[in-house]
């Protein structure tokens, strides 16, 4: 077992006590960065990159990657407590996390999210340790057509017709796509829908929209009910962690599926955000509690977190071995590697053994340390909900404003956020679903450009989406997912009429 001995070598690199200190500092900073919306993992790592300049490359990457783990953990906190996703990949966590907090189960939701994150990262790092050379090459199979197929699959596995009017689902989704298209078109370099305004050049950032739609919108909705948070009565119980853990083993099938989705999306590299959406969509469809999703189901919190963290961790693999960043944060880490004089690529594993295995070892330790740090703070964070509304509400709004600003250092984004807040409030009251809008906004751009790149490659021939077994099977799977409700209905018919409610 060469990998094992390498790993042990890696742990000995960590033996340096300073590296452990850097790890904890990194995790602390990362949680903070994850909590602050707008100041995401990518920004956070980029900001702190120059600080690590005087460290050795191993210490520096340990600290920076710890910031990344911290941010991955921390993103869940505000999602659960205030419905404000601290990071793009924690949007799916709000769907059930916040309803749980409203029902006084914030502690349980947070524990579930953190444990799920840890589990995802752990499975992904096992994969990196033992299968790195085998799967690294897989990412090379991915051309534009394959990328489009993955985005399509994310979409199809997430979007199912809910109780909302299909007209409204379509309207919300297309609004997301339209907003995603504003700004410069990556394929032709043309400006779209900017109407001559320089402020619109940067387009609508997903995070600004989400902070408004979810965070500000939620505060406005809460105000209707009077000056209080619904979750005010949250019981703070130190045993909540253990109690929640008892419920988790029952979800092992879903967790494995989510981890697989996450690892796959991290390696290919589709990214953590699509992974979290896809995993939530799959869990909703295949879990026996699926119909309770959206009302505050623990499983709906755990699944997207498992996938997001698995994707976030495995995204390091294509970064290290191929120099392709699997996520925006990985892109910044990649820049860091170059600055320290390390050349990511196929030879990194051979030439920089100390560095690579030290990093891998720090993923193990960093996630364990991160889990301990965040779990001990669960009661603390749950207690935030006890702060009176008239104190916490303005603070949340201030943090939202700061978050919206820091995404692009643009003052107008704060106003845009507020407008999205009002839109979110009205949509919620009129039963326009927000999730398809958000998903379209985050994926629309990537899906469209990979589709058009594929069309350039094939010179306008749609057949490219079935041109090889890989892309063909993903696209077919996606279409199957889209028509899944129809398929199940047909199946029921064939099985001899609608069954009585025995399955309940």
């Amino acid at each position: 077992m060469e990998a094992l001995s390498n790993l042990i070598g890696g742990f000995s690199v960590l033996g340096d006590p300073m590296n452990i200190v850097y790890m904890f500092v990194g995790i602390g900073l990362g949680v903070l960065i994850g909590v602050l919306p707008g100041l995401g993992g990518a920004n956070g790592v980029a900001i702190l990159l120059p600080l690590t300049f005087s460290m050795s490359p191993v210490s520096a990457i340990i600290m920076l990657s710890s910031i990344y783990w911290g941010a991955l953990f921390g993103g869940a906190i505000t999602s659960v407590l205030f419905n404000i996703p601290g990071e793009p990949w924690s949007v799916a966590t709000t769907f059930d996390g916040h309803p749980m907090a409203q029902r006084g189960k914030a502690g349980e939701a947070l524990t579930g999210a953190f444990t799920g994150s840890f589990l995802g990262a752990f499975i992904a790092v096992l994969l990196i340790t033992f299968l790195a050379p085998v799967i690294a090459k897989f990412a090379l199979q991915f051309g534009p057509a394959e990328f489009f197929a993955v985005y399509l699959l994310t979409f199809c596995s997430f979007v199912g017709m809910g109780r909302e009017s299909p007209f409204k689902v379509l309207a919300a989704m297309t609004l997301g796509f339209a907003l995603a298209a504003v700004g410069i078109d990556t394929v032709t370099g043309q400006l779209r829908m900017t109407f001559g305004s320089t402020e619109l050049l940067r387009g609508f950032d997903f995070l600004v929209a989400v902070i408004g739609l979810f965070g500000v919108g939620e505060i406005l909705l809460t105000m209707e009910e009077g000056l209080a948070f619904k979750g005010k009565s949250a019981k703070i119980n130190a045993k909540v962690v253990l109690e929640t853990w008892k419920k988790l083993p029952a979800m092992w099938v879903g967790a494995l599926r989510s981890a697989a989705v996450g690892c796959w999306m991290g390696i290919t590299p589709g990214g953590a955000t699509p992974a979290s959406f896809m995993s939530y969509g799959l869990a909703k469809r295949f879990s026996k509690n699926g119909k309770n999703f959206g009302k505050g189901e623990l499983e709906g919190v755990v699944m997207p977190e498992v996938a997001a963290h698995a994707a976030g961790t495995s995204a390091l693999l294509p970064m290290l071995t191929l120099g392709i960043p699997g996520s925006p944060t990985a892109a910044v880490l990649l820049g860091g590697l170059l600055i320290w004089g390390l050349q990511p690529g196929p030879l990194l594993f051979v030439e920089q053994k100390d560095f690579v295995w030290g990093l891998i070892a720090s993923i193990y330790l960093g996630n364990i340390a991160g889990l301990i740090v965040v779990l001990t703070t669960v009661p603390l964070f749950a207690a935030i909900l006890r702060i009176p509304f008239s104190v916490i509400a303005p603070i949340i709004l201030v943090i939202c404003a700061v978050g919206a600003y820091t995404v692009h250092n643009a003052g107008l984004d704060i106003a845009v956020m507020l407008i999205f807040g009002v839109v979110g409030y009205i949509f919620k009251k009129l039963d326009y679903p927000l999730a398809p809008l958000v998903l379209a906004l985050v994926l629309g751009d990537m899906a469209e450009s990979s589709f058009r790149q594929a069309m350039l490659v094939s010179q306008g021939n749609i057949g490219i989406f079935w041109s090889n077994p890989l892309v063909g099977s993903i696209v077919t799977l996606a279409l199957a997912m889209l028509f899944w409700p129809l398929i199940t209905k047909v199946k029921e018919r064939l099985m001899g009429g609608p069954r009585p409610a025995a399955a309940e």
Partner: protein
Amino acid sequence: MRSAFARSIQRFAAVCTAVAVLSPLSAWAWEPTKNVEFIVPAGTGGGADQMARMLQGIIQKNNLMAQSLVVINKSGGAGAEGFLDMKGSSGNPHKIIITLSNLFTTPLATGVPFKWDDLTPVAMLALDEFILWVNAKAPYDDVKGYLAALKAAQPGSEFKMGGTGSKQEDQIITAAIEQATGAKFIYVPYKGGGDVAAQLVGGHVTSSVNNPIEAVSQWRAGELKPLCVFDSQRLPYKEPVASGKSWADIPTCKDGGLDIEYLMLRGIFMAPKVTQDQVDYYVNLFKKVRETPEWKDFMEKGAFNTTMLSGAEYKAWLGKAAESHRSLMEKAGFIAK
């Protein structure tokens, strides 16, 4: 509230006195009095961003500046957002911007109201090289073979050139090759240079014009091979990089019969209407940066062309570069109507 305000006033007064007392000491030259914003007209993680953060780190580590340098990304509209922000900060000496070729290409391709001479040129830090890369399995080993295969390509199997962005440097070089040879490419735009290199390894495109640093690791791993460099002379770096070959071993494209030269500016600009004192401060600062071992190491790793220009020479270079971009883009039909 009131007390906070009163305190601010007091501090303000204190700061004023401090400035008044200290200023005679440093009156001989201008120096930044607060944090300097370093605008990057591109996203986090790209080449310009890396260089900006590298500079920030070097300046911080070697204490080259009393105040901090703060990197801010303004990438909207292919960098137009950053340029317009600079243009609007007239007379502000606490703001500098690092540019790439989008200084010339973005205004031409999008029609945003901006020209390079709206800003005050400070210094050229380096020039980024472009190399023609193909997959290591490609049947040709030099530009001649490549060009022959390119010209022989039948409709339906045209060469695919992968590049970063649209109507920017990579596509301009592609268009220049088309103009020089009469052949047609299918240009496929991707988000970043690393993506392009990986797509080339995976065989999804036929060739790329990646910067050295973006593709070097794939070269060393034997996945890609360089054909020629788009410069007037060979690179000066003789240290072996991949399988005994060094950067200096790559022939120029001109030698191979492809008479195209293209270098990308990595230069620093200030806002309009700043004083000469202020410009001089930054010129000096970046001269000091160039002397640091970290910078030299970075230049070598990325096989940069380390020409440094400032003052009138820099301005003249910019004028020429702007003109050549305009004519290249005009011929290729990339200019916004």
